[in-house]
């Protein structure tokens, strides 16, 4: 049984990398230029551009006669050949995408060159069938990431590479026919130095067959070890082992913009394109997104440039950075959902300057697997829930949404907001119900609940023999029937917001004082609230209660009040239920 290797080669890789980032460019003739300004020259072009007369090495000015620079404002001047700058970031992203496509077919992949990769097909027959089927699957995967590939399958790595470089479409070379199939290829497909190719051309060697027919000893005498290598390559006998590439779980896409983007709409379009590319790559590797990190390079501000010294102006201005991290509760792969979430984040906190360059990195995780129980109610779709949470966060602010989590601190009411998580909430409910059933089955202890007033309400206290004797709350007077305390707490002395409080548990009897009585403190009034809207609602409630209780008799309750030593004031913390 012969081993099989497949080579995936991307012709005109520089052009395809650019077109992958800007698909609209693929429809017309395109020349890719590179170099140090103003010495730009053509380094790659698509067949349409070559047909229009573009040649490699042409200067930008020469190419401009055929067409217009991409991004030019005057669209009337646009003709058939477009010019685009070479983008190393897009090439890097295209190459990474190519590797991901290869890993989706075989775990053993060699990263041969930016435009070439080799796959070991050992054991893939049971998955895909024949080598033709594998080649078709590879073509499909590579097309899904926006690239057009040439694919060759052979029993020899080097044969597969040269066949892919030399033959269009899919080429299958059966074992033993390597020399015969390669014979028609020009010597230009060999990866060697230009001088060596020139020597071969002077010898009249045009094809691999002609090179293979040359005696090895004589070739070696004239071209050295390189000649022997080329001779073996031409015969299809050169053997080597596959150098395996290490798969990464971080996926990055970059995009450099010719014109800086300032508004959210065009930015969303670009982000959507990058997300599409990322999701396609993740899908190829059977991954989903756990977190997306978007980094923008922003245009330097005008004011800064204005203040910069002349010497500094010669230097390249330093780009400002802006970063957003989108952490997802469950791994997702839906580009539209991710775009919505990113848009909501950017709407809430937009970048301060126009965007020049975009970096997008996705942390990969295994896709979410859900097994719904027959008798378990289906929870909200995590993706929709995340969008809803993001919308709410935009409304109320990032830090004001989620679940309250108690902090490990003596400071009363100390908590922080953490991400709302359905799974965690379910577990919490389960734990609570388990605790409840335990309480039912075992001895039931007396549980005292405190109805907390947030924010704490200021009260006036008259002391009597070192303990509160009379309390004035919301304009009414309360006589302290019984007091317990003080319960002293302090802490965070090393911080600016240190605290020091003396708490008292008081049994207070409130006595309405005729017309002065406005609102007795009540359970309805002491609410677990802290937003201004809800506070005003509570105030309204207070007025309603006022009318109801205006003619009622005295009201007795158990309250917790505290004296804030640092603020030097008394406050109501809450009422015991």
């Amino acid at each position: 049984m012969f081993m099989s290797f497949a080579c995936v080669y991307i012709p005109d890789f520089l052009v395809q990398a650019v077109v992958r980032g800007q698909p609209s460019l693929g429809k017309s003739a395109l020349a890719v230029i590179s170099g140090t300004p103003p010495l730009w020259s053509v380094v790659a072009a698509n067949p349409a551009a070559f047909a229009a007369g573009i040649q490699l090495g042409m200067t930008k000015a020469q190419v401009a006669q055929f067409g217009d620079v991409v991004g030019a404002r005057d669209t009337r001047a646009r003709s058939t050949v477009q010019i685009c700058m070479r983008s190393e970031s897009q090439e890097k992203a295209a190459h990474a995408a190519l590797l991901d496509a290869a890993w989706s077919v075989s775990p053993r992949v060699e990263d041969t060159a930016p435009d070439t990769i080799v796959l070991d097909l050992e054991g893939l027959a049971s998955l895909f069938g024949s080598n033709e089927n594998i080649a078709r699957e590879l073509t499909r995967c590579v097309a899904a990431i926006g690239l057009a590939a040439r694919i060759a399958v052979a029993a020899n790595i080097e044969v597969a590479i040269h066949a892919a470089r030399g033959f269009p479409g899919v080429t299958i070379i059966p074992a033993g026919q390597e020399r015969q199939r390669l014979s028609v290829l020009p010597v230009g497909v060999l990866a060697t130095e230009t001088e060596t190719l020139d020597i071969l051309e002077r010898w009249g060697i045009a094809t691999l067959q002609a090179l293979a027919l040359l005696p090895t000893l004589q070739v070696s005498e004239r071209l050295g070890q390189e000649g022997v290598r080329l001779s073996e390559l031409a015969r299809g006998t050169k053997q080597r082992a596959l150098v395996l590439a290490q798969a990464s779980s971080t996926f990055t896409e970059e995009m450099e913009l010719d014109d800086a983007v300032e508004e959210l709409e065009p930015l969303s379009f670009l982000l959507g394109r990058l997300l599409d590319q990322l999701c396609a790559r993740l899908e190829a590797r059977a991954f989903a997104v756990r977190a997306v990190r978007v980094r923008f390079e922003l245009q330097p501000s005008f004011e800064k440039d204005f203040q910069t010294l002349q010497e500094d102006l010669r230097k390249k201005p330093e780009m400002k950075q802006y970063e957003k991290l989108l952490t997802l509760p469950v791994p997702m792969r839906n580009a539209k959902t991710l775009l919505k979430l990113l848009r909501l984040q950017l709407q809430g906190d937009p970048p301060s300057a126009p965007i020049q360059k975009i970096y997008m990195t996705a942390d990969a995780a295994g896709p979410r697997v859900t097994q719904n129980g027959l008798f378990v109610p289906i929870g909200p779709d995590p993706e929709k829930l995340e969008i809803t949470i993001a919308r709410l966060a935009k409304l109320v602010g990032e830090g004001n949404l989620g679940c309250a989590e108690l902090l490990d601190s003596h400071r009363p009411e100390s908590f922080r907001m953490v991400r709302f998580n359905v799974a965690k909430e379910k577990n919490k409910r389960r734990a609570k119900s388990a605790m409840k059933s335990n309480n039912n089955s075992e001895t039931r202890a007396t549980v005292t609940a405190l109805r907390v007033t947030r924010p704490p309400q200021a009260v006036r206290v008259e002391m009597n023999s070192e303990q509160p004797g009379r309390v004035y709350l919301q304009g009414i007077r309360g006589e302290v029937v019984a007091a317990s305390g003080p319960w002293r707490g302090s802490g965070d002395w090393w911080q600016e917001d240190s605290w020091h409080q003396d708490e008292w548990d008081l049994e207070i009897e409130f006595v309405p004082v005729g017309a002065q009585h406005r609102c007795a403190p009540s359970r309805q009034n002491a609410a677990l609230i802290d937003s201004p809207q809800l506070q005003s609602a509570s105030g309204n409630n207070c007025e309603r209660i006022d009318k109801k209780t205006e003619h009622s008799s005295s009201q007795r309750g158990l309250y917790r009040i505290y004296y804030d030593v640092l603020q030097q004031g008394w406050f109501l913390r809450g009422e015991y239920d």
Partner: protein
Amino acid sequence: MYTELHARSAFSFLEGASVPEELAAACSAHGMSAMAVLDRDGVYGAPRFYLAANKIHVKAHIGAEVTSAFGWRYPLLVKSREGYQNLCRLITRMKLRTGRKGEGRLERDDLAGLHAGLICLTGGEEGPLAAALASGGIAQGTECVRQLCDLFGRKNVYVELQRHYCREEEARNQASVEIACKLSLPLLATNAVCYATPDQHELLDVFTCIRNHHVLATAGRLLCLNPERHLKSPPEMERLFADMPEAIANTQELSARLDFTLKDLGYEFPKYPTPQGCSQMQFLRERAYDGMRDRYGSENEKARKQIDRELALIEKLDLPGYFLIVWDIVRFCRERNILVQGRGSAANSAVCFALGITAVDPVGMELLFERFLSEERGEWPDIDLDLPSGDQREGAIQYVYERYGKLGARP
């Protein structure tokens, strides 16, 4: 008048923030006549506390918090010399059980036979009663205190109350009072002092962080709720326990019961096993005269006078056993060709020279004996021996262990 009987010094490593001298000074500043320091698993701070307290006329009571096998601690106060000896033995047993530095656990059986002369308090949040109340409520708390009574005797158990303005503590106090009433035991107010002055609570917080491998920002509820564990003045404590005056009064009564101070240590050097019918002093004199003949010859009157003078003082201070033991070790080393040499102030002693412990003639060189041993100075003599490192040194150490017992010797 209140007396603080449950304080902790910095010798409770990372659990106390004041050195004994600071505690003694604060005690004096508050006008307290006595105070007890109970360090964790040791009496390390006791000598310094005793010396500092003695200078300012404060009575220094000795005690320790001894960790039990269950994690909580017995707060033990020393009532008498026997109690001090028992406490030291308990700590030794506890430490030997684990064999690791800083660790140890006391089994209940260890207390049997070693409780005499000790007073047991029920402790604060780290005491046996708090642990029992937390695990089984009042019933288990009562049982716990009853067991303490069985061990130490009803008269030697006090139900401890502490008030640091803490809700949970007050609930425990109420349960403690109920148990004390049920078992007719006296209440005792303490403040479980961890630092001398309120501002030192910050230092204790830092110590707590170090002990628990945290920083201040992440220590959370490991830190104290408030800075109330400082040494409080008697009026402050009386105000705090205004509803239970007997708990304050009992501190004075208990302080009066604690007779022992480090002055009454009653330490005796180990005895040297002399031949039948021969006292230690007689045996030492014979060895010294034998050595004198070897070193000075029989007609050196000056040397004889000096040796007689030294022997008289050694007899007066009851130290012949110590000199004989050192002589025995030197003799053992010489017999086995182990190089041994006494050094330091012992070289000023003609007796040590005659016994072969040192190699310098103090008579010929006119060295001053009082630099080594003086009745006025009231210090123990100290003879240092140099031994070669390695197996030979180990051989000498093993000989001391075998001859004088593992618990009676320490290298």
